[in-house]
């Protein structure tokens, strides 16, 4: 699934790009500088972020600007919040159950 935001965030370089863009849109050069990998590699990572809908590229002449799509990021974070609520509930149930077992003894 190429458009999966979770998979898109699977790589440290891609997470690094996303974190930089959190400060606001930036040129592709600034957003991807200093990762110590080749341009084709950077290009591959940016494409993966674009395909997942996390990052939007705007081309202005020779300048490529990247920005975050906060809605797509929000979905990924919401998923985590939902899981936290679901499994947190299991902890509560286990706690109650153990109390009852204790009382029964």
């Amino acid at each position, binding site marked *: 699934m190429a458009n*999966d935001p979770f998979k898109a965030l699977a790589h440290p370089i891609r997470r690094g790009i*996303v974190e930089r863009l959190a400060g606001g849109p930036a040129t592709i050069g600034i957003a991807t500088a200093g990762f110590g990998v080749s341009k084709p590699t950077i290009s591959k990572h940016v494409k993966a972020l674009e395909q997942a809908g996390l990052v939007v590229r705007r081309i202005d002449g020779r300048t490529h600007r990247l920005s975050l799509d906060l809605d797509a990021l929000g979905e990924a974070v919401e998923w985590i919040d939902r899981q936290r609520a679901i*499994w947190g509930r*299991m902890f509560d149930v*286990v706690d*109650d159950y153990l109390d009852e077992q204790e009382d029964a003894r």
Partner: protein
Amino acid sequence: MTDATPSDPDALRLERTFNAPPQAVFDAWTSAEVLRRWWPVGSDWETPIAEVDVRVGGALRLVMRSPKGEEFGGSGEYVEISRPRRLVFTWTWDGQEGDEGTQLVEVELKEREDGTTTVVLTNRGLRDEESKRSHREGWQASFDNLDRVLAA
């Protein structure tokens, strides 16, 4: 309960200490009764199915029925059963097979000196083979960062 620290590599990590020895806590985690009560449905809901088959490869199955007769359920499979230290199972909500997909839930139990038991639950989404590999690479490090990023 404490949530993940920012440096935690997992998507979701929950921890709590229970006032019971590990065996009792482990048995609670594998109890059909706990499964039945898990989802906070109203008292007018029914739970036609809450079953656990506690052996490796055995199934967990939960079905809840609303007063209107709508059914919601999920199922999973035990992957590892090491009583009382470690329990691993998969979980998938009905209808989410292609969406959130199968989750892997790991429950680690540690006995403390005062006789209580600390449980750490780790929850990973397992969307496909490639994502399983990425999980091992620790991709979930992003999510605490993302929370921070989105709050900025």
